[in-house]
């Protein structure tokens, strides 16, 4: 066990040794070292967050056929720091009649709900915050705290648009948690455990090949959870004047914004862990944990890029369309997929791996095709109902 194989344990032992040689109680030293580890992880995450702002602005610029920030520093790399300085020196207003304590805690809770997610992310086979055996359920739990922070932000701003935006956003988040939870069960079925490390270790074939529909539905539900386009009705600037963060200015708004970007990056990471093999890449992760960290960060960035790609390509959806999409299409398909996957897993559990993979992919394709056929026939009926109506006034003569 040297530094290259197990850096965290070596560092923790060395620090604990130093603290006990200063005369500290062993338990106390252990707690202090754990606290320092958490502090270092959060610092690294916030630094990554700053560069995510840069990545976001450059990528959106390229999608929109322009260059993006390129004045401040080489390739605009210092731009996020300039943004942070601007946010810090802005006036910190509190609206009249707002609930001060709740108003000030809401952005902190929002950032907290993102940071605690990283306690269960396995960065390397030996580097994970807490190897919870209910790791995937922890993702939903942290999402619940995020939901709470949005309601607190919307309500305490003492502003009707803010309340409506917060209600809509929370309705969307709570609704889309259901297909996401169902899709989190699919890697659990395949790997037989809910722990993150166990899911990665059992991905000899990436789960995206075993169940592509599950990866797709998880991505859609994750984008809705994040509150990003096309599901960002609550916080788009042209709708509801920015929803729940109307009354927030300065660094409090910065916390919401940076928290949202970090949340998107984290969900890109979870998409990679659950469906794309996490830190595994043809055995490279066994060489050194640092290589494993690099692999998972690259996969998370690819997932984040896909989320950004969806955001900057698709139009915003109306709130009733969003909720109808979830309850009438996504949730039934998700549940049917879980049942079919469990059934196929039980039927094919002893089979050869090629048969298993083909059987799973076929079952996914059949579920997707059947659901699309049902949607097609329903929309055909709706269209026939509308076509029979004549327009009241003709648009062109």
């Amino acid at each position, binding site marked *: 066990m040297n530094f290259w194989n197990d850096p965290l344990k070596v560092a923790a032992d060395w620090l604990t040794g130093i603290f006990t040689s200063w005369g500290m109680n062993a338990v106390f030293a252990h*707690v202090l070292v754990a606290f320092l580890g958490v502090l270092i992880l959060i610092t690294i995450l916030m630094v990554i967050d700053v560069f995510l702002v840069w990545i976001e602005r450059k990528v959106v610029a390229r999608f929109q056929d322009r260059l993006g920030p390129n004045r401040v520093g080489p390739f605009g790399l210092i731009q996020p720091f300039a943004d942070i300085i601007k946010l810090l020196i802005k006036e910190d207003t509190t609206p009249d009649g707002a609930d001060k304590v*709740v108003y000030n805690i809401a952005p902190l809770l929002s950032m907290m709900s993102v940071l605690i997610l990283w306690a269960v992310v396995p960065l390397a086979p030996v580097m994970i915050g807490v190897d919870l*055996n209910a790791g995937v359920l*922890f993702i*939903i*739990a942290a999402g619940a705290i995020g*939901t709470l922070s949005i309601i607190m932000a919307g*309500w305490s701003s003492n502003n009707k648009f803010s309340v409506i935006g917060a209600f809509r956003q929370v309705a969307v988040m709570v609704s889309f948690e259901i297909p996401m939870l169902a899709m989190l069960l699919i890697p659990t079925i395949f790997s037989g455990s809910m722990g993150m490390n166990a899911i990665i270790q059992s991905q000899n074939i990436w789960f995206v090949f075993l169940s592509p529909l599950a990866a797709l539905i998880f991505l859609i539900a994750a984008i809705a959870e994040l509150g990003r386009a096309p599901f960002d009705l609550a916080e788009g600037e042209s709708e509801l004047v920015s929803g729940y963060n109307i009354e927030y200015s300065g660094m409090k708004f910065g916390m919401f914004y940076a928290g949202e970007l970090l949340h998107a990056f984290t969900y890109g990471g979870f998409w990679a862990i659950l469906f794309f093999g996490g830190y595994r890449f043809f055995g490279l992760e066994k060489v050194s944990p640092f290589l494993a960290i690099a692999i998972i960060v690259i996969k998370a960035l690819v997932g984040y890029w896909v989320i950004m790609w969806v955001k900057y390509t698709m139009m915003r959806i109306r709130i009733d369309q969003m909720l109808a999409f979830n309850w009438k299409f996504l949730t039934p398909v998700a549940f049917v997929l879980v049942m079919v996957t469990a059934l196929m897993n039980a039927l094919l559990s002893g089979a050869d791996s090629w048969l298993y993979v083909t059987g799973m992919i076929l079952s996914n394709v059949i579920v997707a095709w059947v659901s699309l056929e049902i949607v097609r026939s329903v929309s055909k009926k709706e269209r026939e109902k509308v076509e029979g109506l004549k327009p009241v006034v003709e648009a062109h003569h």
Partner: protein
Amino acid sequence: MTGEQIFFLLVGLVTLGAALMVVTSRDLVHAALWLVATLFGVAVIYTLLNAGFIAVVQVVVYIGAIAILFIFAVMLTRRTLRDTGASVNKNWWAGAVVAVATFAGLTFLLQSWSGFSKTAAVIPSGFDAISQLGDALTSPAGYVLPFEVASVLLLAALVGAVYLAFNKK
């Protein structure tokens, strides 16, 4: 006083303090938020009891669904943006007496039980509570019938709640 005991005392004090704020807070939205703090404290108690799955389910179900439902209901059932009137009714002292008597009675009854001060047994290594729980909930020799009945109960509650709260325009 071991570290675990100090931690339990802290968490217990926070939970009970938040619970007191729930029942005495004048502003109902604050009461609902204090409820969230109490539920969080209870989730930490579950982790102290080595019931990690129950702790995470507590956060998902109680904080993520029930507390949000309470906050929505509080916001939808008020005439003005702030609460008016007294927060407790005129017999609140009788309620306080009953509560204290209940607590005293429960403690007195329990401390005469022989197993009151027993300490926890060590959990055997390799014991996976989640898989055992899954087995218990789905095996016919276990508790599959209450599990299925609970699902039917939730379905009935879902249909009932939608019907009751539906606004027929």
